[in-house]
């Protein structure tokens, strides 16, 4: 094959890729500007009674809040870290603490061997009523490098110690792997709901309509999604 043919083929492939990317981008752009169409899209989505949250985290916020925000995450995921530090607190201030929404965290630990271990540790902390404190501790000390040792067994113990937890009880819980099945159940639940990255969010309204989106998205996206559901 001569050089001209190689260059021509490369160019055609590039043009096709761009055309596909641009058409997808354009259709989403148009959709964003057409709010009515977007609201219709939300309304058309069916309820998701199949999301099983019984193995997830304890509820953060009021149990009777009309909106449920489900976060699928991995403690070693860097994007989850960015979402935790840039978006979550505003969401808590404006929707969780005002009683409009509640948050449930469901583990999708896939990034390394320390991911399921950290998830199990969070439930061992729940035994001592420190789930959300431990959750915060994990996302505070995450260094963005999976399996670098930041969430190894010693560090998990030190986090428990820092939170004034009973470290012996925490150790027994970790040694027994009593929450391994719970973490696996959460993983399976995420896969069942077609979650393919972390963080992924499913917002469930009181009438059962749902909206799912992925990534460490800014607060404005959450507000724009939740407000029409209230």
């Amino acid at each position: 094959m001569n050089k001209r043919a190689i260059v021509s083929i490369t160019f055609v492939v590039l043009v096709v890729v761009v055309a596909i990317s641009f058409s997808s981008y354009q259709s989403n752009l148009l959709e964003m500007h057409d709010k009515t169409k977007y609201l219709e899209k939300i309304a058309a989505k069916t309820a998701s009674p199949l999301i099983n949250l019984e193995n997830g985290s304890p509820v953060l916020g009021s149990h009777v809040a009309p909106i449920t925000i489900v976060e699928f995450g991995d403690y070693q995921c860097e994007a989850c870290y960015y979402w935790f530090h840039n978006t979550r607190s505003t969401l808590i201030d404006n929707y969780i603490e005002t009683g409009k929404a509640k948050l449930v965290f469901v583990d999708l630990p896939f990034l390394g061997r320390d991911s399921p271990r950290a998830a199990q540790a969070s439930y061992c902390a729940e035994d001592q009523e420190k789930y959300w404190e431990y959750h915060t501790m994990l996302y505070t000390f995450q260094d963005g490098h999976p399996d670098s040792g930041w969430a190894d067994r010693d560090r998990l113990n030190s986090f428990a110690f820092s939170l004034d937890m009973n470290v012996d009880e925490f150790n027994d819980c970790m040694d027994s792997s009593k929450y391994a099945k719970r973490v696996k159940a959460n993983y399976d639940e995420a896969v069942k709901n077609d979650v393919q990255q972390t963080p992924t969010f499913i917002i469930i309204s009181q009438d059962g309509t749902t909206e799912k989106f992925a990534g460490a998205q800014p607060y404005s996206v959450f507000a724009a999604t939740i407000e029409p559901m209230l």
Partner: protein
Amino acid sequence: MLAVTIFVCMFIPLSILSEFLFIEPFVIFHVVEDRIASFVLITSISLMSAIVIPMNIYRIITLQKSTTKIGGSIVGSIIGASAGICSCGPIGFSIISTFGTVAGTTTAFLTNYEIPLRLVSLGLLCLVYYTTIRSISVECKTQ
């Protein structure tokens, strides 16, 4: 035209995979303060690829020269594109779910060394740019 095409082809997918550009539920561009370095690097890599690849295509078509340099620029672009994008995203999830521990180690490497790998990619593209400029000057004089 080709340069714009290459820039768009690289910048938009990289922005989506690096979670700077979101298309669902709304199209929104979002760069948090602590990820500015990463954003600057993917912008620079897309820009350099958009300059270097068309220059080499010009060399191949007009001057009928070898394809070695375009190979270098494509390798540079691929290194820059693959670094860091595999961490928590759908590509990483698919790879790790399918290939297990080995894939996990590979994606961890790409995540851990995102910035150095992108700097290497940028360096490679700058090197190809420099050598291409030199060879075009010499080849054009010769012809």
